[in-house]
């Protein structure tokens, strides 16, 4: 399981870096095309939005792998050790439930419904773009099960020392 997680981490990091880099270039191109070439691009804004959704969801999955999403954990820290573990397990199950129902199940249904719907500016349909939801959902589910197993076996502490990571 550890090897799979490390491999996944690397693939996701690479995906985030590439998506972000393309995103920067795409929007820079949009400004350049309009202000310098005087030929506004018809596709750059749409491409940017979809790159951004994929980046956001993959990045979110990566951060679930690191248990790095912002939480209010000062109350949980005050619990005795056993209580902390119980609460941590419930929390991981909550992550799993939300991910399974919204991102995976709901995401597959949305992608199905919109499968053949056209986009004006890009040569792809909307449906496949929605696949970002179930794909990131499966990744988050994997990471959550990974943490669940490790919390239960005691390999990982119940309450993480999170780094402040806000705007």
């Amino acid at each position, binding site marked *: 399981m550890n090897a799979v997680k490390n491999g996944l981490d690397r693939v996701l990091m690479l995906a985030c870096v590439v998506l972000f880099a393309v995103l920067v270039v795409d*929007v820079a191109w949009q400004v350049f095309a309009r*202000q310098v070439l005087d030929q506004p691009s018809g596709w750059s804004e749409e491409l940017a939005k979809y790159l951004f959704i994929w980046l956001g969801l993959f990045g979110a999955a990566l*951060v*679930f792998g690191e248990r790095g999403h912002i939480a209010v954990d000062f*109350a*949980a820290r005050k619990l005795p050790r056993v209580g902390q573990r119980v609460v941590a397990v419930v*929390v991981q199950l*909550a*992550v799993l439930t939300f991910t399974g129902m919204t991102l995976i199940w709901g995401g597959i249904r949305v992608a199905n419904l919109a499968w053949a719907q056209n986009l004006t500016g890009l040569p792809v349909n909307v449906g496949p773009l929605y696949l970002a939801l179930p794909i990131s959902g499966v990744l988050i589910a994997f990471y959550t099960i990974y943490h669940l197993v490790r919390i239960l076996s005691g390999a990982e502490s119940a309450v993480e020392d999170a780094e402040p990571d806000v705007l």
Partner: protein
Amino acid sequence: MDTATLAALVLLGGIALFLIMGAPISIAVGLSSLTAMITALGVENGVLTSAQQVFRGINSFPLLAIPFFVLAGVIMNQGGIALRLVNAAKVMVGKAPGSLAQTNIAANVLFGAVSGSGVAAAAAIGSTIGPIQAKEGYNKSFAAATNIASAPAGMIIPPSNLMIVYSLVSSASVAALFVAGYIPGAMWAAACMVIVYLYARKRPELKYTEKITFAQGARTILSAVPALALIVVVIGGILAGYFTPTEGSNIAVIYSLVLAFAYRAIKVSQIPKMLLDAARTTSVVMFLVGVSSIMGFVMSFAKIPAMASEAIFKVSDNPVVILLLIAVILLVLGMFMDPTPAVLIFTPIFLPIVTAMGIHPVHFGIMMVMNLSIGTITPPVGPILFVGAKVADIAIEDVIRRLMPFFLALLVVLVMVIFTPGLSMWLPTQLDLVTP
């Protein structure tokens, strides 16, 4: 019980329960919203609509300004730009009492004016100037408190990532919000400077002794000009209508990248790491925005804003009392919650109440951001407090004692901003960005 009330109970009860258990805020909000959605629409449609809302929430070009401003901040931090701003601030402050602490405040303002984040300012500026202050005999806790108290000014002075989030949920114009932040942000910094002045007045040993010739001073200021020109290019370009805030944020990335290379402060091989750092910070926010849009859908269905305004108007119909009540609620919330989720969750609840009293959404945005900014420097959940104490390597309890006078001064500024709409609205009105 009708479905709307049941959905409201499930939503609010669920969020509170999961937050206390220490679940990620996005999951507390997401799972509770999903459950409320299912109570209202049934399972099949509930999961479908929730998934659509997550996608729709992130599918936004204006929101894209956040990753770019975050990335620009990361580049400035490592690209030698923060250091040049500190040096320029030092020359500007001159030999005022407590000049190094004043420099810290000025540098936080300058960093805030080129980047969108308060946490980044506290880390970058605090770690640059803290060691110099220690060498010059400053009390370490006082130095850290100054850095912590003044860093949130960067969240009020444009560009500001938090304002972008607020504009998204309130539909107020980003350009108007940006401009509206200048005067309140300057007042925030001024309040900190007054406290430092009062502290340093009686301590002559805190006078900076290093002699700077005019030529040295001029050279230092000049070396910061390219960094400061970013303000003119990005904010000026947005206001003049050459580009959108998102495009402006992209230009900030390219510009700071060019500067960092020109200063030979970064190598190409460092870029992937910087992209990844910025991607992590942004993804957390994006995911929150996505799940909050499920909550937005459920909230209007469950008539929560209407219930909240009914409850508040029951307490009083005096606008002054209501505004103070909201300010106190936001201050308490801000102590326990990070500003981004607080803006996402509470704007839809409070904004209809204050607009009904004739308050402009831009003015309320400034009030809300200031309120929550104070929360970033208070325990138990204070990201800027934690970062500031960490870079200064001292205990939180020691800083808090020194922070007290700053808190008082900032509360005075907050009350002024709340009850003097002109402080926020004058500048955007002059620039024709709002119709009052």
